[in-house]
Structures are given as structure tokens and as C-alpha cells.
């Protein structure tokens, strides 16, 4: 079972790895996708801003020329103010174009734009100053236009270059964002697929492994069953071969006892017969135990009154109990209680229990068989006032070949094992309660099958004695009860 646990823990580990991979894939792809969308949004906004600022700058430069010319022609101070206003607009636009995150190449182009702009403003200011003395307004305006236009064109070109450059940078950024998005999809798909494949492999591996385990277990169980059945069959063969010579010994001993008037010889012959009887019981026990081992105990159930089997038991064990001064008594409530079971087998169980009780109950003690209904079961109890069982031995009494120290000299230690097998063959259960010096109480319960439950209720109204013991047993009923 330990290596099965290993499989379980390895499976848990494997699936943890798969889940980890899946989690990393999900988190990674979320991060990548978010980055990509940030970049995309940033570049789009930046691009629109730059275009706007550049066109505002050009517009301001245009206004400077137009308003400047107007001022030179009219000398209106208001026009001069507007020219100055356009100048500051140009400054603002250029300043806005100069963003903090600009790259070196961008910055160089920006500086060129700025120097071109300052040259332009210088030229404009100079023309306002130098031309103030000259009176020919038209000439002044023409001079202004001739000197300023190339500078303005230069500024326009520089601005155009800057915007184009920014545009190319933004395009690159957009491409990068696209690549990131694509990569995030690739990473997600890849890791997810990997996790899927790994989990499939793991599932396959462990399914196969567990299948192997259960197959092995089945094979082992089959082998064990086959071995037990083989053992049972072998025992049957041996038992058959043993029974014939045993019969021969029994018959010879009987002939010996009859043929001789010698008392010693007769005693020996009787002893041989009782030894043979022990051997017969031992062979039967070995066979029954092997049958229980092989799980092939045969149960031929029929409905019978509990009292009939108790009568048979009393008949068998009454003389022995009397000879050892043990009071053997019984009680069945209600008296007509019937069970659905194999009568011979139940007799065997009770015989084993009573036989044990007699072995361990000293003279003057008592043994009582109590049978009553207990819910959906019929409960049998055999309690004695014997020496009891030590607590450490209690869990073992139903094991095969178990013997108490006191019992070690006789019996095979199979009686309780067989009793358990028979009771369990009836789908019942058997247990024991005992304490050293306080006697023992062996109990077993047989289920009343539901279909039979009604049958088991004694119907006193319709028949006064529905299950009276029959035949020769009836006569001994009262006698044994007393």
C-alpha cells in the first residue's frame, strides 16, 4: 500500500506542476497583453498630440509673418502685440513638442527646430527694429518677406522632419506593441498547450499505473482464492482417505470389546473408540475450516423453530453437563421464535460455543443459552460462569488455530473460527464479551430476511402451538427445560 501512496503523492506533485505552469501562463499573458495595450494607447495619443503641436507651431510661424508684415505696413501697435502673441504661441507649441520621454535622435531634431525658430524670431525682431527708421513701408514689408520667408520655410522643413521622425518612432512602437500582443498569445497558447499535454500524459501514466496495481491485486486475490480452493480440495481427498481406516479402527475396537470378557481390554477398546471420535471431529473441523477459508461454506437455509435446535443441543450436551456438575439451561422468547437458517450449521455453531463453555466452566457453574429477537435480527447468546478470557486475547478468539493457554492440550482451535465463518455465511455477525473470572458471553445475530419477517411473528391467534417440536424431541422438551 505504501507504493500506492507514492503514486498518489507523485500524481499530486505532477498535477501541481501542471497547475503552476498554467498559472504562470495566464499571469504572463495578462501582463504582456496589458503592456501591449498601454504602449498602443500611449503611441496613438502621443502621435495625435505631436501632429497638433507641430501644426500649431507652423500656424504660429505663419501668423508671425502675416501679422509682422501688417505691422510694418501700418505701424499699428496692436499688430505688433499680435505678432508677439504668435511668437509666444510658437514657443508654447515647441515646448509641448519637447516631451520628457524624447529619444536622443528626437531631441537633436527638436533642437534644430528650436534653433531655426529662434533664428526666425531674431530675424523678425531685427526687421521690426531696423526698419523703424525707414519710411518706405512697402519696401520694409518686402524686405521682411524676403528675409523671413526662407527662415520660415526652414522652420517648416525642420518641423516636418521632427514630426516624420516622431511618426516613424511611433510606428515602431506600434509594431512592437503588436509583436508583444502576438507574443502574449503565443506564450499563453504554448504554456497552456504544454500544461494540457503534460496533464494528459500524467493522467495517462497514472491511469495505467493504477490499472496495473488493481490488475496485480486482482491477480493476487485470484491466486490466493485458487490456493485456498486447492487446499480445500486436497483436504477433502485426504479426509476421505482417512475416514475409511478410521471406520475400520472403530469397528475393530467394538469387536474387541465384544469378543473379550476381560475388563481392561474392554476399557481400552472404549478408549480407542473415543479417540477415534476425537479424530473424526478433528477431520471435520479441518474440512470446515478449509471450506470457510475458501469462502465456500454452504448454507442451505430453511425456516425452523429455534427450540428444535436447542433441544438437539440439550440432548447432546445435557449428559456431559450433568457429569461435570454444570447447570445447562436455556430460554427462547417468544417461545415460538423461528429463524431462516441452515439448521445443521446453526447446531454446529451452538455446539462449538457450548463445547467451549463446558471446557472452561468449573463444576458448580452454569451455562445458559438465551435467544430473543433484536430488531431485525435473532440474537443467540451463550453465557457461562467460567474462567473468562483475558482482554488481550479477546480480539483473537475467532482467529484460526487460536487456543487459550488453558485449552492448549485439546482441540484444534478451529471451533470459533468455523462458527464465525458459518454466522458470516448467514450474513450475520458474532462477537464475545468476557472478563477474567467473570465468565464469557458469546453472541451472534442472524438477520431475519424481510420477506420472512412476517412469517417469523408467531400468530398465536390462529394456531395455539404453530411450531411445537416434533417427533421424539417433543417428549424431552419439558424434561430438558426443567
Amino acid at each position: 500500500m505504501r507504493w500506492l501512496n507514492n503514486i498518489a503523492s507523485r500524481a499530486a506533485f505532477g498535477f501541481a506542476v501542471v497547475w503552476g505552469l498554467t498559472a504562470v501562463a495566464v499571469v504572463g499573458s495578462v501582463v504582456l497583453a496589458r503592456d501591449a495595450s498601454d504602449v498602443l494607447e500611449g503611441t496613438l495619443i502621443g502621435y495625435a498630440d505631436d501632429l497638433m503641436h507641430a501644426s500649431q507651431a507652423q500656424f504660429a510661424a505663419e501668423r508671425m509673418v502675416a501679422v509682422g508684415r501688417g505691422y510694418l505696413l501700418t505701424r499699428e501697435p496692436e499688430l505688433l502685440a499680435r505678432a508677439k502673441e504668435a511668437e509666444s504661441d510658437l514657443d508654447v507649441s515647441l515646448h509641448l513638442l519637447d516631451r520628457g520621454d524624447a529619444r536622443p535622435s528626437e531631441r537633436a531634431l527638436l533642437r534644430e527646430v528650436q534653433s531655426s525658430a529662434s533664428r526666425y524670431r531674431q530675424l523678425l525682431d531685427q526687421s521690426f527694429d531696423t526698419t523703424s527708421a525707414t519710411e518706405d513701408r512697402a519696401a520694409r514689408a518686402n524686405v521682411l518677406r524676403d528675409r523671413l520667408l526662407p527662415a520660415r520655410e526652414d522652420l517648416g522643413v525642420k518641423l516636418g522632419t521632427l514630426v516624420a521622425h516622431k511618426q516613424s518612432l511611433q510606428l515602431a512602437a506600434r509594431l512592437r506593441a503588436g509583436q508583444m500582443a502576438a507574443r502574449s498569445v503565443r506564450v499563453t497558447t504554448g504554456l497552456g498547450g504544454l500544461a494540457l499535454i503534460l496533464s494528459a500524459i500524467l493522467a495517462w501514466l497514472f491511469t495505467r499505473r493504477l490499472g496495473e496495481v488493481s490488475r496485480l491485486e486482482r491477480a493476487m486475490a485470484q491466486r490466493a482464492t485458487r490456493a485456498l480452493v486447492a487446499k480445500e480440495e486436497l483436504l477433502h481427498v485426504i479426509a476421505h482417505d482417512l475416514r475409511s481406516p478410521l471406520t475400520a479402527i472403530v469397528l475393530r475396537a467394538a469387536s474387541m470389546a465384544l469378543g473379550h470378557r476381560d475388563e481392561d481390554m474392554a476399557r481400552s477398546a472404549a478408549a480407542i473408540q473415543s479417540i477415534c471420535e476425537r479424530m473424526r471431529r478433528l477431520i471435520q473441523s479441518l474440512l470446515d475450516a478449509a471450506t470457510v477459508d475458501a469462502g465456500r461454506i454452504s448454507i442451505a437455509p430453511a425456516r425452523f423453530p429455534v427450540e428444535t435446535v436447542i433441544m438437539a443441543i440439550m440432548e447432546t450436551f445435557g449428559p456431559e453437563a450433568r457429569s461435570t456438575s454444570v447447570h445447562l439451561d436455556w430460554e427462547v422468547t417468544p417461545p415460538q421464535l423461528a429463524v431462516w437458517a441452515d439448521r445443521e450449521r446453526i447446531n454446529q455453531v451452538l455446539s462449538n460455543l457450548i463445547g467451549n463453555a463446558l471446557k472452561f466452566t468449573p463444576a458448580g457453574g452454569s451455562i445458559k443459552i438465551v435467544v430473543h429477537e433484536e430488531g431485525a435480527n435473532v440474537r443467540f447468546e451463550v453465557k457461562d460462569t467460567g474462567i473468562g478470557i483475558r482482554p488481550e486475547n479477546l480480539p483473537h478468539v475467532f482467529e484460526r488455530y487460536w487456543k487459550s493457554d488453558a485449552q492448549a492440550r485439546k482441540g484444534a482451535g478451529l471451533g470459533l473460527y468455523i462458527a464465525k465463518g458459518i454466522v458470516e455465511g448467514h450474513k450475520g455477525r458474532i462477537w464475545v464479551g468476557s472478563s477474567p473470572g467473570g465468565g464469557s458471553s458469546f453472541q451472534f445475530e442472524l438477520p431475519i430476511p424481510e420477506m420472512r419477517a412476517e412469517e417469523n411473528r408467531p400468530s398465536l391467534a390462529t394456531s395455539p402451538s404453530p411450531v411445537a417440536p416434533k417427533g421424539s424431541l417433543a417428549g424431552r422438551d419439558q424434561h430438558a427445560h426443567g
Partner: protein
Amino acid sequence: LASLLVVDDDRDLAEAIVTALESERHEIRIANHGGEGLERIYEHRPDLILLDVQMPALDGPAMVRRLDPLDRDGSPIPIVLMSGIDGLATIAERLGTSFFLRKPFGVDNLIHVVRAALEGHSASRP
């Protein structure tokens, strides 16, 4: 006084049965397997057969089946089956006899069943 045939592959048991039945003063023959049993029956028709179930070559039930045709003209020979096999009662019933001895059996049982079978009583459960 009756004539009995004991058919059992265990010679010790067959002879022990002969000894145990001495007091009954029957004339008893022995056969060690079914084939020999049939021979003995041809030679001298017995009044009762004590028959083992499991024997090499020709077993008890097979011997009884071969015996059946012989019985057509007369009444069948009563048979007592002897075995330690499970389901002995069923085997006996199938062979049409209600007499059987479960091995190992005692001398009292043996005498009781032999008497009952000879007298033709049906209730003979040992």
C-alpha cells in the same frame, strides 16, 4: 441368516465390517472394487450390498447402474451406501436407496442400518 456383499477399496475396512457383523451371523463376501463386486453378484446373488461410493475403476454409483438390468426380473437388491463424502444423502436418494452410513460409523449404527435394510424398513437415518 442372510448373504451380504461388502464392496470397498479399503480392505481393512471391509474385513473390519465382516468382524463387526459376526454376531449377526450373516454370510459375508468381500469385493475390492465395483468390477469385482459385479463378479461376486453374478456368482451369488446377495441379499444386501454394503457399497463404498468412491472407488478406483468402477465406483459405487456406476456399479449400481450396471446392476439395474439384472433386477428387471426380480426385486432389486437393497443397497447401503458407505462414504465420508459430502452430500451422501443426495447420492443415496438418486440411486434409489434410503440406507447410508456416513464414515466414520460405529458398530451400533452398522448393525442397525443392516437390519433395517434387510427388513426393508425405510427410516434408517443413522
